[in-house]
């Protein structure tokens, strides 16, 4: 335990007080500005919503729309965070965690101290998560605070709770990216290689999610549709397409967080939403408990893939031979 605390302490200080930390917090500030002043149009939308209450109690969660709506030519906060900010922060915090120590010759000295080998890994991982949590909390609080000034509506207690859950889960999502980049820092001895590998994975899933090319191709192959297709065939096509898209952790997370932050959403699956939103038989937003049930599979998947990353890293690192060259 003593070793873990010592390593955690040093790594956290390294993260927060180095250039890396300063740059990350500069990014946080930038994100906040983009999130608040980018969707200028969105803000007037929010005001409009306030003035004319729409059906199904949409007005109940005005404050949260700040995080999910986008204005003209800009990204919604949620989109921006899941697509870019969180993956990049995760990669930046972890890509050189182990191999930098190797190349600078500190790892063998560190591991010759009376600490378990996994303590080094755990301490670094923990410090990364805490840095991430601090960073994300400051971003969300800044956006929330500025948002309050701009739209003039304070969050309700449920909104605050949902935002808190959003923070916790986003940190978990960040932990996945951190774990992945740390895994690469164990697998590759060169810092540049591990950085490239992490970024490559991120860009792959980013394009996979944004273009939807591969999921469509898979769906076309498995359940081709034409103009004469029946509804059943269309649904089958869409199901395959969505399932394939969910392979991307970026999409999976975004889907879950959208449900969390937009309580009007009643299902995670987008195409089913079309039916659901038109369904007058179930008006009103989902209660928090139901929201959690809806996104539970997503969360379990997240914990699972983060655990796999962590597990593989753990296994590789504890068995590795440490040479000083």
């Amino acid at each position, binding site marked *: 335990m*003593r070793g873990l605390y010592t390593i955690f302490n040093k790594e956290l200080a390294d993260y927060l007080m180095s250039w890396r930390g300063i740059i990350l917090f500069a990014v946080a500030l930038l994100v906040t500005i983009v999130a608040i002043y980018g969707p200028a149009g969105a803000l007037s939308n929010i005001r409009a919503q306030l003035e004319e209450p729409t059906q199904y109690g949409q007005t109940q969660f005005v404050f949260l729309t700040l995080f999910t709506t986008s204005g003209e030519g800009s990204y919604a906060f949620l989109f921006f965070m899941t697509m870019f900010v969180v993956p990049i922060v995760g990669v930046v915090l972890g890509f050189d965690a182990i191999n930098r120590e190797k190349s600078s010759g500190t790892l063998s000295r560190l591991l010759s101290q009376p600490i378990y080998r996994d303590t080094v890994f755990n301490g670094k991982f923990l410090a990364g998560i805490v840095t991430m949590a601090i960073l994300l909390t400051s971003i969300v609080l800044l956006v929330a605070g500025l948002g309050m000034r701009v739209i003039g509506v304070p969050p309700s207690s449920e909104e605050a709770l949902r935002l808190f859950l959003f923070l916790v889960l986003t940190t978990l999502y960040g932990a996945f990216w951190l774990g992945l980049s740390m895994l690469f820092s164990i697998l590759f001895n060169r810092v540049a290689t591990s950085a490239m590998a992490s970024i490559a994975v991120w860009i792959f899933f980013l394009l996979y999610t944004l273009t939807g090319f591969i999921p469509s191709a898979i769906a076309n192959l498995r359940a081709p549709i034409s103009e004469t297709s029946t509804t059943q065939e269309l649904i089958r096509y869409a199901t395959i397409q969505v399932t394939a898209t969910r392979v991307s952790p970026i999409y999976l997370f975004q889907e879950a967080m959208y449900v969390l932050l937009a309580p009007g959403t009643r299902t995670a699956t987008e195409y089913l939403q079309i039916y659901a939103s038109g369904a007058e038989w179930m008006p009103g937003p989902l209660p928090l408990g139901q929201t959690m049930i809806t996104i539970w599979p997503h969360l379990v998947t997240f914990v699972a893939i983060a655990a796999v990353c962590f597990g593989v890293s753990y296994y590789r690192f504890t068995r590795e031979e440490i040479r000083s060259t």
Partner: protein
Amino acid sequence: MFIVETKDLTKTYGDITAVDQLNLHIDAGDIFGFLGPNGAGKTTTILMLLGLTEPTSGTAYVAGYNSTREPLNVKRITGYVPEKVGFYDDLTAAYNLTYTARLNGLSEVLTNKRIAEALDIVGLPKAAERKVGEFSRGMKQRLAIADILVKQPKIAIMDEPTSGIDPEGIVQMLDLIAKIAKERKMTVIMSSHQLYQVQRICNRVGMLMNGRLVVAGLLDELSKEAMGSSQFSIEVKLTEITQAVIEAIKRISGVLSIERSKDKLSVSCSEDLRPQVARAIVDAGGLMIEMKIQSYALEDIYLKYFREG
């Protein structure tokens, strides 16, 4: 009871055997010179002693602890200076040492005391608050010694502690190691591929060649053993070399040959003839500045294996 002992320690990488059934015995208080050319398996053996690498077969014991099974107990009492020792470049020297102390669970007061003391001993008292990134190679090596002094282990294992420093620095470093070992009653294991470095401070030697221990024992005994069959070389430095001096030395029985270079004479002989040579020089009117004897016996062994390997 040996403080370090290995039993048939073997490590293979695929088809290559890096360390081959090594049986080492080191007594407490020894300064053990681990000699061998690059790639002989010195580092691999050290890593196995520290439990940083698992042996393919055989066992290593350090102070009675099995290095593979109880690495933490071994690490608690050993200090390690890896070959290319590194520190956190953007942190100060003092902080780097504090980190080691904290990982070893030293109290804050003890840590500060030991750091000040250690930096003083290695000759870096003013560098405590400087970032290690500004340090030269030699300074980093000294800092590594300070790192060991802070930990105060029973055994210090140093892998090529003199690599990458200038000749003068090497001598200082070796003397520093010898001094610390003596004062702190520390067992030192030092690997090197330079015989003269090992001869300078070590009392016990193990010569490793292709993963096998070819020569092992106390340096004195090894030298004596080897001396019986070989030659000595006496090097004499004079103020002025005259023909009379050379003739006088030549006349001593037992002198095989004599070689002249600038202000030095190298006398090859079959036994230790230092007194006779000294008298001959004085009798011939020469003024002697320095006299050294060197036995090339160990070096011969070393070079012989070196060539074969």
